[in-house]
């Protein structure tokens, strides 16, 4: 891989230990994946935030790295944090403080594009969280590989990433055509479609025909489910996403999605309300529109929920919901908006055993944790919940 004189100096340690280590990581990854050079990035989104995931080993590394003077050189936000008991929260705050010392904006969200950081078409990024990576690549047309914790942090510090994978035009072309004959209309239809495609396809770039999503949120949900049940980091939707026009270079295999495929996913996650003890909305983190819809559904329901409702959202979106009065409505009906956190990476999930959600991604993860899962649209969940 070609390095500029300046990059060689960083690698030789002329600018200190932290920059040197960060550069070593980028160069090694560049060599492994055959990058020709490093390219500047506009922003980073760093994984390795929940104390449940990184543990004391991660804290130790971050502490040594922060003490060595590690500082990010571009705008950087974080993955969602975990929530747990007091002992856990103390460790969690320590993690966030270490990232703050490195100059990172400690907003911890899988939807940085709702407030903290909205990239534009063609921007190169180093993002980590799989649904955010899918959103940036597919819906915005920015370019990022799915980074791990240390590699996104290294990219944030150096301000560059190795030029390989989804940064290159040729790897953004579709590899399979998906012809959706099924009727896909509601939020959960999109979640189920994403789940089905993630399971069915490999490390593909699907070109999806036959859907007309009403809201951006539906695509956000579909992409998140696809990236959770599979490893898809970029998809194109005919007539909808910004790169679909150039996406097909070769003759491709076509797969068809029928109503039975969507129904099969819905049936997989249809556990009875008697086994459900929490409702989760906001995976990926909810938009203001999603929160507003929940507040309206609760008003129509007219009586408080017996099963507690948790809505996860970025602190930016929660601040809007607070000031517009939606939070108050939601709390009146036994709901809570939890800012900058994620149940999937939290020990608090062990306090429950059954989850009702409109998220295909959460359905996938909570089932893998051994939970009972009920997947349905928010409208039905709020109406039917005990």
């Amino acid at each position: 891989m070609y390095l500029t004189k300046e990059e060689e100096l960083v690698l030789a340690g002329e600018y200190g230990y932290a920059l040197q280590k960060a550069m070593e990581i980028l160069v090694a990854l560049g060599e492994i994946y055959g990058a020709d050079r490093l390219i500047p990035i506009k922003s980073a989104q760093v994984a390795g935030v929940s104390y449940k995931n990184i543990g004391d080993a991660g804290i130790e590394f971050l502490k040594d790295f922060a003490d060595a003077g590690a500082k990010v050189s571009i705008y950087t936000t974080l993955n969602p944090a975990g929530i747990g008991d007091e002992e856990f929260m103390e460790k969690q705050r320590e993690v966030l403080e270490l990232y703050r010392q490195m100059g990172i904006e400690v907003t911890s969200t899988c939807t940085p594009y709702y407030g903290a950081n909205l990239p534009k078409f063609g921007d190169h990024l180093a993002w980590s969280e799989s649904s955010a990576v899918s959103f940036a690549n597919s819906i915005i047309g920015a370019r990022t590989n799915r980074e791990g914790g240390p590699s996104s942090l290294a990219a944030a510090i150096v301000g560059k990433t190795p030029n390989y994978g989804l940064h290159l035009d040729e790897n953004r072309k579709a590899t399979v055509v998906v012809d959706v004959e099924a009727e896909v209309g509601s939020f959960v239809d999109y979640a189920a479609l994403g789940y089905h495609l993630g399971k069915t396809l490999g490390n593909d770039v699907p070109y999806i025909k036959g859907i007309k999503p009403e809201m951006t949120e539906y695509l956000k949900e579909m992409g998140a489910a696809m990236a959770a049940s599979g490893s898809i980091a970029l998809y194109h939707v005919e007539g909808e996403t910004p790169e679909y026009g150039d996406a097909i270079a070769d003759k491709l295999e076509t797969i068809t999605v029928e109503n039975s495929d969507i129904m099969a996913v819905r049936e997989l996650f249809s556990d009875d309300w008697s086994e459900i003890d929490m409702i989760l909305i906001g995976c990926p983190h909810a938009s203001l529109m999603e929160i507003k819809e929940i507040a309206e559904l609760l008003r129509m329901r007219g009586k408080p929920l017996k099963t507690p409702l948790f809505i996860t959202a970025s602190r930016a979106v929660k601040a809007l919901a607070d000031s517009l009065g939606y939070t108050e409505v939601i709390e009146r009906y036994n709901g809570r908006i939890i800012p900058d956190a994620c149940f999937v990476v939290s020990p608090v999930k062990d306090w429950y055993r059954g989850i009702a959600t409109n998220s295909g991604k959460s359905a996938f993860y909570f089932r893998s944790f051994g939970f009972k899962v009920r997947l349905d649209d928010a409208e039905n969940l709020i109406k039917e919940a005990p």
Partner: protein
Amino acid sequence: MKLRGRKIVGGKVEGELIVSQKPLSFLGGVDPETGIVTDAESDIRGQSIAGKILAFPRGKGSTVGSYVIYALKKNGKAPKAIIAGEAETIVATGAIIAGIPMIDGIDVSRLRTGMRVRVDGDAGEVEVIDSDQ
């Protein structure tokens, strides 16, 4: 016998091999306090990698595995060097932040636990100096 691969992290060390013929997960697969392999699917389960030269085809599992490699080093339980069939992000990043010499591109099936080897991270080579176990 000398095998040629590729440098991932430089440095020269000599030591005894421990070889896993299966991919290895560090998060949940190696205890950072003891260096003992706990991965249920591993063929070296129950053995320690501390102070050995660890060879395996490739890493798998969570990217948090990089931090486990770092913790092993801090706790004095890290391998002296890592030899991989194929380097990927998790193990390469872990070896870099922990400063453990590492090479890849080596046919691990030609290596056996107990062999004495010399790893030259800079040249990307491993030399078997005593295969008499």
